[in-house]
C-alpha cells in the first residue's frame, strides 16, 4: 500500500522555553483526498501541530520532538523546508503575517514564478484563483490597504494558486463574511473530493466542518481526545464540554429537545437533518 500523505506516531513536542509539552502522544494519519478538521480551545496546540506538519518546526522554530512525523513516508526532520513546501502549503492564522508583496497580483504570482512555471500557466492559474476567492477586482490593489477579510482572501488565494498536494489551513475563515466562509470551506471540500488533495483545517466553525469534513480531531491540552466522523464527534458532548468546544447549533438543539422528552431516533446534527426530522413531528 502507498504511504499515507501524513503519518504521526506518538508525537510529543516541547518548546524550549515551555515548562511542559505542548503536544502529547499524538498519532493520526491522513490519506489523499481526505479532509480533516481540527478543533480545540485556545492554546490547545492546533497551530503547533500545523507548524510541525509544515516543517516550520523544527526547521525554523526549535522544539524538542519525540516520536515520528512523516510526509509521504519521509521524516520531516530529514527533509529540507524547501522540499516539504513543494508538497505542503500552509495558510497562517494571521493573514498579515503571510502577505509581503506590495501588490495583490504579485502576491499571487510570486510563488508560481519561484517554481519556474511558464507565463501562460501562471496566467491561467491566477485567473481561476481570483475567481475562486472572488477577488478579481483587487488584483491591482496594494495588499496592506485591503480590508481584513480581503487580506485573508488574498492569503488563501496565494496558497491556492500553488495547488500544493497537502493544504494546511489555520483558521482560514476567521475574518470572512458568513457566506464567504461557507463557500471557502465548501470549495476546500471539492479540492479533496475532486482533486485528491489532502486537507487539514484548524477551524472553529464546527457547523461548517461537520457539513464538509470527513473527520474531526479534537485537541485538549495537546492531546487528541477524539478523532471521529462528524456525527460521532457531535454526539460526544462529554469530551466537547471538557475541551471547551461546542458542537453544531443543531446538535445542541437536539440534545435540548431530547432532554425535554422529544423523541428523536437519530439526533439531527445538521440543519437539513433537523428540518426533515421536525417536519415529520410537527403538526403543520
Amino acid at each position, binding site marked *: 500500500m502507498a504511504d499515507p500523505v501524513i503519518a504521526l506516531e506518538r508525537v510529543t513536542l516541547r518548546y524550549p522555553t515551555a515548562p511542559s509539552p505542548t503536544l502529547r502522544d499524538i498519532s493520526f494519519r491522513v490519506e489523499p483526498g481526505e479532509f480533516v478538521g481540527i478543533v*480545540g*480551545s*485556545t*492554546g490547545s496546540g492546533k497551530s503547533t501541530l500545523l507548524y510541525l506538519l509544515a516543517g516550520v518546526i523544527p526547521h525554523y522554530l526549535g522544539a524538542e520532538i519525540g516520536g515520528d512525523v512523516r510526509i509521504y513516508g519521509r521524516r520531516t526532520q530529514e527533509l529540507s523546508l524547501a522540499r516539504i513546501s513543494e508538497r505542503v502549503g500552509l495558510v497562517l*492564522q*494571521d493573514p*498579515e503575517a503571510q502577505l509581503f508583496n506590495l501588490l495583490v497580483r504579485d502576491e499571487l504570482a510570486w510563488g508560481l514564478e519561484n517554481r519556474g512555471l511558464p507565463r501562460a500557466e501562471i496566467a491561467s492559474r491566477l485567473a481561476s484563483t481570483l475567481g475562486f476567492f472572488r477577488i478579481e477586482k483587487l488584483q491591482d*490593489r*496594494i495588499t496592506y*490597504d*485591503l*480590508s*481584513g*477579510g*480581503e487580506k*485573508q*482572501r488574498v492569503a488563501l488565494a496565494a496558497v491556492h494558486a500553488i495547488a500544493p498536494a497537502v493544504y494546511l489551513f489555520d*483558521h482560514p475563515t*476567521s*475574518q*470572512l*463574511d*458568513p*457566506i*464567504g*466562509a*461557507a463557500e471557502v470551506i465548501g470549495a476546500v471540500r471539492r479540492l479533496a473530493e475532486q482533486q485528491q488533495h489532502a486537507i487539514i483545517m484548524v477551524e*472553529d466553525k464546527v*457547523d461548517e466542518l461537520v457539513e464538509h469534513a470527513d473527520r474531526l480531531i479534537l485537541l485538549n491540552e495537546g492531546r487528541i481526545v477524539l478523532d471521529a466522523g462528524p456525527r460521532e464527534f457531535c454526539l460526544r458532548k462529554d469530551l466537547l464540554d471538557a475541551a*471547551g*468546544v*461546542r458542537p*453544531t*447549533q*443543531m446538535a*445542541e*438543539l437536539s440534545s*435540548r*429537545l431530547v432532554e*425535554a422528552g*422529544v423523541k428523536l431516533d437519530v439526533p439531527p446534527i445538521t*440543519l437539513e437533518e*433537523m*428540518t426533515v426530522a*421536525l*417536519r415529520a*413531528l*410537527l*403538526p403543520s
Partner: protein
Amino acid sequence: MTSPPPAELAVVAEGVEFEYPAPRRVLALKGVTLRIPKGQFAAIVGQNGSGKTSLARCISGYLRPTRGSLRVAGTEVWRLRPAQRATRVGYVFQNPDHQLFRERVWDDVAFGLQNLGASPDQIQESVEQVLRRLELWDKREVHPFQLSRGDRQRLAIAAIIVMRPQLLIVDEPTTGQDMARSREIMDLLARLNRDEGMTILTITHVMELVAEYARWVIVMHDGRVLLDGPPRQVFSRAEELRISAISPPPVARLGLSLGLHPLPITVPEARDAILRRLSA
C-alpha cells in the same frame, strides 16, 4: 416611530461618504445614513469590504468623511483634538497589533490616561481596575507581543476602556478567539453597556453572537446601510441578507423554514418554540 432628541443620540450620520485618497481613490462609504441612540448595544455586520471598518473609523474621528455629516453626541468628532475625542469615543482596532506599541502591558493601558493628563494616583487606580477586570493583572509586566492573540485582543480593549469613552467601537473583537473567550469578551461589553451605560458598537461576522448580545443590527452592503433593526427582525429577512453575504444563525434558518413565530434566534428560543408547537 418618533425620533429621539439629538442629545439622546450617540451617533447621527447623514449621507456620509468616504473616499480613501489618491492614488487609490477607493470610495468605501457611498452615503451612510443612520442613528444610534445612547445606551444602545449595536452590531455592524456585512460582506467583506462593505465598509464596516471605514465607517467605524469615521465615527471614531480617525477619518474625516469626504461628504455628508456625522455627529457623535452632537459633535463632529474629527474636529476634536485626540484628548477630547478619547472620552467621547473609543475605537478598538480590527488587528490589536496595530494599536499596541509599549513595552509592558501596564504601559499600554496607562498611555491613554497619561495623555489625558490624569494624576499618577488616578492612573494607578484605573489601570489596576481595568487589568483585573480583563484578567490581565498577572501579566501586567509582560511585553504585549509575548501574549497570546486572545490576551492581546483583551489588552487592546483595556487600553481603550480605561479612558471611559461614552461610545465604544470594537472591530471584530472575537477574531481568533475560541467560543468561551468570545463570550467572555461579549459579556464584558454587555456589562459595560448595562452597568455604565456605555454605548457599544461592535463589528462582527459571528451571527450567533449578534443574536445573543446585540439589540440592534446594522447591515452594510457596498458602502451603504442595506437594512437595520432588532436582530429578530433582521434575521427574518434572509433573502435580503444574502445580498451582503450574511446568513442568519442556523436556528433562525430552521425557524424560517418551519415557519416558527416569533422567529427563534438562539438555541433556547428554538427549543421553546418547537416544544410549544409540539404541544399545540
